[in-house]
């Protein structure tokens, strides 16, 4: 009998709070669907058929972990909001004679109801959607569709355990909250008085400095390698800056606006500025979270989308020719054999090499000190003063670029990809070159595409000079027979022929020397699609999840404020404010709160643009125009979703106030 009584109360409570509980349950369901699907993909057997599935699976397992962590934080945050709203209700129960332990039973029952609804619906919808999702993923990575339907029991169990755990933690938190406070406090609940926040100039200044420094790093980054380190420093600085500015800067700006009497004493400004100052203390952190999250979502989406859209460009950048052979430290004899093998294999498959590029070269990783260079041991880590020197002969240069330059011994043509050498002299551990000319461009391919560190390309008179340079740099006096050799070509053949040719070459060339690499763009294409497609898929998936989270956070925030503001607006109405005016003010106020983080996010993005393009170029993506277009599309799509939610929220907010 009494259990029946409690469950009745629990059901009643959920119904009564439907305005906040329905979005909460929906959010739970969405999160569960998302998690189940990611977990499903990570476990799906179908994916096991993919050739390079381990890298894709790793991306997916990573995605599963991200979503799990995210779900915990997200649902906990929203639960906290719900409990805050309902403290008054529990206080009333308490005063009417329910003990805290009875309240705990009611809360437990409520949580169980919500949990059963969410997990059942979530898993069911997840299972139904999973087929669609895997089709989508296969479409994205251009993999042939597999028939059949799969429900990995492991994923279902993971989902149920994770979310039962989350609900359990939330329940404990709620009970603890109610347990901590006395009835009077519970009754007062949300309306604890707040002092006007002070302007914190120091924090505002720190914010400006961090943000400025972050922007400066981003704008002045010239080299892709520097972009890696710089990027993370800049991100951290910008995050700190955003927090500081939202916390202190917003209050400073609002107070400045308030000082401007002409501006402040206009009805719209009057009401919204004062209430924003009043709220900023609790809002600032939330707004900066939303701002940072928006920035991340936009960056993630725009980069993954543009990389995926530009995958052909990336392939062509990475593999300028269909097939390329890179031989390290081979002798002239081996080079000759190599050429023969290529000729033979291509003719077996009935094709001929076209657009051939071949050259002998030698490269050294060095430490640069202005115009002098000394040799450097290669580790995994490349310091910023590292410089790569690549030597080719004038004959190869003339042949590749159709020129007829001539050089004397001790003279060089210099092409600088990254880095800087002042003056006309280069000193290579005692071996000196005079720079005859600086080349504005160089045919770049093979070793010549290396763009990680500072790179200098030196064209010298002949092979012997290169060997002398090696002696000077490495200090061994022997006569070195070995050079590196690069040979690449296009073939006019279908994809499967190209793949066959690449495999045949691999087999044959390994016999000549184990230090020969063969790359075929067609045989790599699938790997690229899997990796980039997987990232793209993950980007979209997480993007949607984060957007949903953000939207719900905003919605809740506004509703909570709506209940706070209700009384205020009723007073204003009594004093003589019309409903029309109230509506206008609410619109502009909600608009500001909603779009401020978005605007700041877009500003971040504009400043980050330079460093992002550098970052992408390291991943062989250099199509800046495509990146711009993708970013703009992402921002627009994002704003549209945002606007829809804004309209819905403003409506609900107004409804609450009019009640």
């Amino acid at each position: 009998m009494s259990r029946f009584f409690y469950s009745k109360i629990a059901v009643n409570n959920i119904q009564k709070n439907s305005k906040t509980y329905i979005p909460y349950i929906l959010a739970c369901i969405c999160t569960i669907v998302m998690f189940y699907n990611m977990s499903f993909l990570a476990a799906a057997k179908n994916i096991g058929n993919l050739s390079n599935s381990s890298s894709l699976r790793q991306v997916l397992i990573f995605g599963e972990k991200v979503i799990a962590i995210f779900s915990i934080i997200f649902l906990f945050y929203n639960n906290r909001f719900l409990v805050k709203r309902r403290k008054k209700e529990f206080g009333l129960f308490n005063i009417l004679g329910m003990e805290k332990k009875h309240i705990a039973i009611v809360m437990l029952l409520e949580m169980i109801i919500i949990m059963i609804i969410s997990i059942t619906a979530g898993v069911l919808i997840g299972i139904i959607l999973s087929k669609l999702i895997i089709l989508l993923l296969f479409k994205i990575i251009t993999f042939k569709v597999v028939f059949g339907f799969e429900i990995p029991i492991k994923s279902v169990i993971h989902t149920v355990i994770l979310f039962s755990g989350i609900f359990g933690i939330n329940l404990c938190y709620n009970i603890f909250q109610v347990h901590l406070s006395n009835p009077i406090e519970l009754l007062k609940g949300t309306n604890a008085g707040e002092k006007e926040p002070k302007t914190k100039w120091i924090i505002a200044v720190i914010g400006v400095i961090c943000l400025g420094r972050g922007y400066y790093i981003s704008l002045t980054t010239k080299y892709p390698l520097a972009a890696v380190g710089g990027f993370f420093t800049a991100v951290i600085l910008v995050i700190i800056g955003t927090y500081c500015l939202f916390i202190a800067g917003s209050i400073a700006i609002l107070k400045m606006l308030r000082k401007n009497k002409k501006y402040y004493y206009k009805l719209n400004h009057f009401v919204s500025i004062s209430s924003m100052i009043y709220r900023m203390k609790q809002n600032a952190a939330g707004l900066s979270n939303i701002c940072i999250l928006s920035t991340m979502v936009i960056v993630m989406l725009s980069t993954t989308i543009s990389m995926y859209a530009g995958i052909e460009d990336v392939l062509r950048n990475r593999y300028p020719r269909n097939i390329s052979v890179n031989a390290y430290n081979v002798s002239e004899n081996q080079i000759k054999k190599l050429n023969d093998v290529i000729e033979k294999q291509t003719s077996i498959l009935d094709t001929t090499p076209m657009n051939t590029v071949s050259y002998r070269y030698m490269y050294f990783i060095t430490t640069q000190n202005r115009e002098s260079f000394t040799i450097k041991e290669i580790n995994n880590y490349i310091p910023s003063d590292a410089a790569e020197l690549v030597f080719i002969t004038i004959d190869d240069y003339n042949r590749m670029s159709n020129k007829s330059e001539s050089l004397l011994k001790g003279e060089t043509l210099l092409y600088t990809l990254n880095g800087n050498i002042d003056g006309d002299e280069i000193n290579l551990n005692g071996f000196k070159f005079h720079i005859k000319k600086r080349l504005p461009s160089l045919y770049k391919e093979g070793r010549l595409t290396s763009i990680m560190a500072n790179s200098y390309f030196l064209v010298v008179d002949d092979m012997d000079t290169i060997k002398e340079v090696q002696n000077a740099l490495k200090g061994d006096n022997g006569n070195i027979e070995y050079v590196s050799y690069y040979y690449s070509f296009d073939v006019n053949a279908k994809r499967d022929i190209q793949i066959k040719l690449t495999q045949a070459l691999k087999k044959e060339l390994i016999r000549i020397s184990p230090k020969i690499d063969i790359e075929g763009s067609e045989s790599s294409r699938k790997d690229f699609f899997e990796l980039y497609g997987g990232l793209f898929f993950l980007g979209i998936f997480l993007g949607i999840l984060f957007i949903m989270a953000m939207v719900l956070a905003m919605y809740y925030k506004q509703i909570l404020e709506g209940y706070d503001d209700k009384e205020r607006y009723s007073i204003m109405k009594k004093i003589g404010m019309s409903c029309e005016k109230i509506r206008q003010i609410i619109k502009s106020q909600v608009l500001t709160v909603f779009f401020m983080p978005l605007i700041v996010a877009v500003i971040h993005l504009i400043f980050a643009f330079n460093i992002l393009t550098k970052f992408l170029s390291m991943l062989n993506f250099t199509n800046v125009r495509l990146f711009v277009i993708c970013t703009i599309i992402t921002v627009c799509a994002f704003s549209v979703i945002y606007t829809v939610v804004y309209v819905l929220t403003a409506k609900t907010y107004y409804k609450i106030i009019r009640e």
Partner: protein
Amino acid sequence: MPILEVKNIKKVYTSRFGGNTVQALSNVSFSIEKGEYVAIMGESGSGKTTLLNIIAALDKPTSGDVLLNGESIVSIKERDISAFRRDNLGFVFQDFNLLDTFSVQDNIFLPLVLAGKTYEEMNERLKIIVKKLGISDILNKYPYEISGGQRQRTAIARALITKPQIILADEPTGALDSRSSDGLLKLFEEINNDGQTILMVTHSIKAASKAKRVMFIKDGEIFHQIYKASMTDEKMYQKISDTLTMIVTGGERNE
């Protein structure tokens, strides 16, 4: 011409599904001249708050009319009503109804901002009023930082700053201690002496005894009224007290 005329007001509340009807006001008529200070007394449920709400244009009567300066409040269109209220009526509430997001000064400015006045004009009006009410030093404080009496003064300043035709006060001393109440009533007398018309609804005999006229409302009708004329406060107090006793014990209507 009287400043406020209430003619045969009737108010019937119908419950949501049209079942029960409750008659809050059956037939109320009275008029108030410019410069008067009138108190309306009655028990809970006698209909006095309903009456005040109708006069304040917050509620519409079922039948009858309310004229302010000869103009009918009842027939004002919905979208003009806020402006009308703002320009002609000043409100003082039991629980002050100050906004805690605004400083004292901004709370007082609120109706003027609503009316779209310039800062200079607002400031000029403010200076005169705060001096009279003795709240010049707390203008930059927030409502939660000041005492109840100060809050009510702020509310009065907010009501006065629009130079309303009439001030409507709903239990203005209800939430105040006796010292603050005395101060407030003295203030009302002063304002009234300056020519401000005041209509006050109250439970408190003490508050009512300061008014120039007291009307008693019972079961939705004006039951009785007393003019103070040259009576002392004590005499007035006694008379009001007697009348209330009579109402409660169900005595005959006299005078």
